[in-house]
């Protein structure tokens, strides 16, 4: 891609969940790639399959989920490998998990075991992946704790999670994720549970460390504000599909898909003149079971074309370089676009 080094490319990822009621198709053919040092934002509402996609990359989804597709990752040892083909408990994937790709989770308060000290838990990763030497490992872990801005790291190392505040725990979690200097960091709603002032601190921290370590970041969130601050490119998901991708500028200033427009319109921007009403998308996200044919956004869409949108699923359409949309209405208005599969 443009001569840039691609770290990971996900191709046509599908995830089915077997439930008692039937099969729920949570992710329905998601494709994206991330370059070295780049931040991709994955945006969407709850239940659209963001988290499942992330977990599929690490192969840590529940047993009930069956995954299809390809995830090519540029591993240290063997170059490009399809992560989905690796045995989920094998040595190879374990060398990737936590070392080359690591993940920060939404709620730092539930991610740590209350029974072990913070230092102990950060060290777990260090000792597994970097060195078996206890003293060296502790030094590396402490160093990382200092880097993420935990004051008094030596004292904090021996403390338990309940002695940390939410913001500090998130820092500790980031330290744990970054201690092995991963190539790719998956941040799944890393600041949703935090207060604004703390959120700003954490976002800045992730950005700084990203520069330091030359990491790529997959930033998953439903908060359009943080995406604008953090990401280079954005992929908008709706009901298990990416419906629009583009650079942040393209998505925020020139959104094409009705859903993206609606999503952006429903966020009030401080400092703009007061609108009486917020723009809102009608209806609610349908259940991803027995989806109707055609575009999954059809019921809620303002620009729907009867006889087209509810019949055929829209194809991915490239509008500009890096800006793609899947929407019949858009492809009708824009003639210059070419359809790619």
């Amino acid at each position, binding site marked *: 891609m443009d001569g840039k080094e691609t770290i990971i490319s996900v191709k046509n990822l599908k995830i089915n969940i077997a439930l008692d009621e039937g099969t729920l198709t949570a992710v329905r053919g998601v494709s994206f790639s991330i370059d070295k040092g780049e931040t991709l934002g994955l945006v969407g*509402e*709850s239940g659209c399959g963001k988290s499942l996609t992330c977990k599929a990359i690490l192969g840590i989804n529940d047993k009930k989920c069956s995954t299809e597709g390809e995830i090519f990752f540029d591993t240290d040892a063997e170059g490009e490998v399809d992560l989905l083909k690796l045995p989920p408990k094998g040595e190879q994937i374990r060398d990737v998990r936590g070392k080359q790709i690591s993940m920060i989770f939404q709620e730092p308060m539930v991610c740590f075991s209350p029974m072990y000290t913070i230092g102990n838990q950060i060290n777990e990763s260090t000792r597994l992946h970097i060195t078996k030497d206890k003293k060296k490992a502790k030094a590396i872990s402490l160093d990382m704790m200092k880097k993420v801005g935990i004051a008094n790291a030596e004292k904090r190392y021996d403390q338990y999670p309940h002695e940390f*505040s*939410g*913001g*500090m725990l998130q820092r500790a979690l980031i330290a744990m994720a970054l201690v092995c200097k991963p190539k790719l960091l998956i941040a799944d709603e890393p600041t949703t549970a935090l*207060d*604004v*002032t*703390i*959120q*700003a*601190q954490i*976002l*800045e921290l992730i950005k700084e460390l990203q520069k330091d370590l030359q990491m790529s970041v997959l930033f998953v969130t*439903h*908060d*359009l*504000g*943080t*995406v*604008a*601050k953090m990401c280079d490119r954005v992929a908008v998901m709706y009901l298990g599909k990416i419906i629009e991708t583009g650079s*942040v*500028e393209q998505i*925020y*200033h020139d959104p094409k898909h009705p859903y993206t427009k*609606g*999503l*952006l*319109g*429903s*966020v*009030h*921007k*401080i*400092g*703009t*003149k*007061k*609108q*009486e*009403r*917020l*723009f*809102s*998308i009608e209806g*609610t*996200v349908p259940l991803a079971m027995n989806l109707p044919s055609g575009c999954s956004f059809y019921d809620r869409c303002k620009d729907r074309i009867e006889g087209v949108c509810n019949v055929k699923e829209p194809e991915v359409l490239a509008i500009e370089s890096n800006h793609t949309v899947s929407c019949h209405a858009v492809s009708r208005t824009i003639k210059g676009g070419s359809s790619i599969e």
Partner: protein
Amino acid sequence: MSDYILQVKNLHKVFTSKKISVKAVTDVSFNIVQGETIGIVGESGCGKTTLGRCIVRGIPATSGSVLYTAEDGETYDFLNIDRNKLKELRKDIQMIFQDPYSSLDPRMSVLDIIKEPLEANFPDMSKDEMEYKAIEIAAKVGLNTSYLKRYPHAFSGGQRQRIGIARALVTHPRLIVCDEPVSALDVSIQAQVINLLKDLQKDMGLTYIFISHDLSVVEHISDRVGVMYLGKMVEFAETEALFSKPMHPYTEALLSSVPVADPTVKMDRIPLKGEIPNPANPPSGCYFHERCSYFLDKCKEVSPEYCEIRQGREVACHRAEELDLRGFSYDE
């Protein structure tokens, strides 16, 4: 007759246990005019929710008064009225809760949930009338009335929040305390619920106290906003004045941390040192001085008085007059 529908005066709430006492709300005062929306913002643990609960008498306040002017023009201290009067006035002040998943009884049908406040407040009302009123209000908040016999689990988050709103509205209250009513909802659903709250306000002449940590939502819905820090009100002003020209350093820092959904707006954050102190052991002097970038020696010792600096602007800061703080620029 008072100009205000509600006057909160020197409200205190102290939680005590055997070992420690925590001042959750300290000396909070403000007034609300009929039909307006007051936003209360602050970070977690600053006492927003406790304040809201004290006002509706969900938990007893330690001291202070909440003067409520009823429809007949009489003013009562809502915190000190007797049981009978309380029963009569309860229906006027209702609350909408944060979490639409845990605030609805899973074993009651939606119709029963919406009807319940009527049963409690109007014991003489006939069953049919109650049902009629419940259905009427359910339709008003946009619930499909043919689904009212179902149980809460069958509804989505946004729908549940509508049930919560319907339940609060069924007694035809005059004032509603909304405690983070949209925080648990998705963005597109948030907008729906906020629009609904605004429409209902217009229709029914409601007055809202809107408690939230989400500054952009508060800015959108409120006429006036109060900022709380560690149990104290630090600033109170009209929305646009507060957001464009904050007068308390904490407000400034809070505003500068908000990520705006526009990549061209660069975040120029005013760093806050450290974290929110433990409310059980607050710092001396001004509670905020340890994290403030403008503090003087005086701030360490003397707690600043919360006072009206200008018409309609109340601030608790020693340097409020001299500081020139940064907010959002409102351009047309």
